[in-house]
């Protein structure tokens, strides 16, 4: 059995920016292979792992999707011994100066994101925060070495080591959304000793931070009866509005909005209530900002749910989560999967309204 916190630490120590997820996918594959019956990799690099159910054929399938790609940077130009970068995924340039990074050049190089002194910046950017295109990355090497080792298009990923905090709290980069990969792993472990009627597809998707290419294509290829996107949501933290955030360490959140099938939402809620798993209601009036947006419209359309884990300081190198929430989310997924029977789809209705 994989110990969850060391596993999640290893996941956030691996690179895997959107479109380049292979390093982290290999770690997930190692963890999921012994927990599932069949594993393959999709055309866009998503990991599909099937745990067969025991129900009669044709068995419906439940798809659990967590995106494994991470935000980061990409080299645009090389100037002397310094690099200019652009973003992969959404980044606030104000959280970048002083960050240690890994430059994935001809070999991996340690670097620092730096803000040049104001007199070296364009006149219109000499007061206030430096724009992303005016920041530099310094690898501590000479211009000759940099020219040899780094090219435009090379990836730059965060290198902040995981920070273990008392009370089962973990901080670091890429916890969005490796945290949810850990939750699916917990679910698979929980189900090892259980009889589940349905097939279960554990999926680690790619490119969520850019185009949702992984979720669109995995939804199409697997064609599940139901899909759940597991992602992180905003935890209450200094400066964030209280009406859009959720307490960290007090349970996962259940999404509600157009990307979420209302009947499926209610089914999750019933399981959580029965097991006394604490949760909050996560209102998503438009785009959920998760893989559910893509899964819902794959092929002929899929009833979709969003389950989220509260995370502080999203899209910084010091994102923070509670391992307790990972376990609760994983347990809720396992119990929901185990609750599925051959009547479930017949009883699923859009017209239920929020119970």
């Amino acid at each position: 059995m994989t110990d969850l916190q060391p596993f999640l630490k290893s996941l956030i120590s691996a690179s895997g920016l959107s479109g380049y997820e292979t390093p982290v996918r290999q770690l997930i594959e190692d963890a999921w292979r012994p927990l599932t019956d069949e594993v393959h990799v999709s055309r866009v690099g998503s990991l599909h792992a099937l745990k067969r159910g025991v129900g009669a054929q044709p068995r419906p399938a439940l798809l659990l999707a967590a995106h494994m790609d991470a935000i980061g940077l990409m080299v645009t130009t090389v100037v002397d011994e310094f690099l200019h970068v652009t973003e992969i995924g959404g980044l606030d340039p104000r959280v970048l100066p002083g960050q240690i990074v890994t430059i994935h050049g001809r070999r991996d190089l340690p670097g620092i994101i730096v803000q040049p002194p104001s007199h070296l910046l364009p006149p219109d950017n000499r007061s206030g925060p430096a724009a992303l295109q005016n920041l530099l990355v310094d690898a501590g090497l000479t211009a000759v070495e940099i020219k040899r080792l780094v090219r435009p298009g090379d990836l730059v990923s965060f290198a902040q080591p995981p920070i273990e905090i008392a009370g089962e709290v973990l901080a670091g980069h890429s916890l969005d959304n490796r945290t949810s990969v850990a939750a699916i792993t917990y679910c698979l472990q929980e189900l090892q000793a259980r009889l589940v009627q349905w097939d279960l597809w554990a999926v680690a998707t790619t490119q969520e931070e850019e185009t949702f290419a992984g979720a669109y294509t995995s939804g199409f290829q697997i064609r599940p009866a139901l899909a759940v996107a597991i992602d992180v949501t905003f935890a209450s933290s200094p400066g964030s509005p209280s009406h859009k955030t959720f307490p960290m360490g007090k349970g996962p959140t259940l999404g509600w909005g157009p990307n979420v099938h209302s009947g499926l939402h209610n089914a999750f809620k019933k399981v959580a209530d029965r097991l006394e798993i604490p949760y909050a209601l996560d209102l998503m009036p438009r785009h959920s900002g998760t893989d559910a947006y893509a899964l819902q419209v794959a092929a002929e359309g899929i009833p979709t749910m969003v389950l989220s884990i509260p995370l502080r300081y999203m899209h910084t190198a010091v994102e923070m989560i509670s391992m307790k929430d990972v376990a609760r989310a994983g347990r809720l997924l396992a119990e929901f999967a185990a609750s599925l029977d051959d009547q479930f789809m017949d009883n699923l209705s859009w017209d239920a309204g929020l119970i």
Partner: protein
Amino acid sequence: MTPKSTMQVPRISAAQLKLLERLTNACAVSGDEGEVRKIVLDEVRPVADEVKVDHLGNVMVIKNGQGKARLRVMLAAHMDEIGFMLIQNEDKEEGIFRFDVVGGVSTSHLAGQSLLIGKDHVPGVIGAKPVHMTTNEEFKNALTVESLRIDVGPGNSNLVKIGDRATFATRFSRVGPSLRAKALDDRLGVCTLIELVKQAPPNIDLLAAFTVQEEVGLRGAKVAAYTLEPDLAIALDSTPANDLPAWDASENTRYNTRVGYGPAIYTADAATLSDPRLIRHLAETAEGAGIPYQYRQPGGGGTDAGAIHKQRAGIPSVSVSVPGRYLHTPVSLARLSDWKNTLALVYLALQRLSPDILQAER
């Protein structure tokens, strides 16, 4: 570059790099220098003639020379670093603290950083509002200290207390020709001075002051210079290398210093006009020994020399720095060759010192 001189100069090898690693990883915010002080005391006690800790926490070390007419030469390197103090536990349950800065912290480098807090090095982070929730208007404004918080995690407020100091959690590393760490300003100076105490040239009495509170007003050096009463003084520090490219590829003429160009000799900063005899002595020593050196561009900033040169009836003073990029941020960067050349230059300059230098016209 290797000095041409055949004279034995102290070298920087694995042992010195290991010491620099311990020194930079230690946490010693101005006013709370104990961790570095302990390392310094352990290193100098076995080799010094006298060691004492004064009323402010300066470590004062005397290494006597031999022979007649020895100059009393003060060398100062500051033990303290910039950092933070916790000032209010704003949300006890959630582990959220207000903080203030100690010294000239670059406040544009705080959001997204990892910290070590208090004597137990409790981990904490400075987060930021998620980019998803930030308005276009907010992006235009810098994240101020007032808007940021230190977070030690829910339920963990009791692991730290207000009044605790915090530093960046950055660990030392070597990268190609470079050294990367927090607090290279001024652990490079501290490490250099430890080596000089261990291998002091015998023609002088070496008065080493490992000072406190440099970053909050050169306060340790002021009393250290009074007590030591030297004939002349050299401050060993690290100074900014702003040698980055300009946005429009025009020549960067305001670089202060450049990494890889050797030790930086000070002519003038905002706190000191260096004694011209000492400037000449350093430059002549470097040229004679084939050690690369550079003059720090005259301008702002200050070192312990700012307090020392005005002490008592006046103490001829100069500063020598290892150039460092990104000082006062979470990660600074210096070249190993500059450090080696700084140690060699100061050692050889000390070895060439005689009382005559103070008889010359300024």
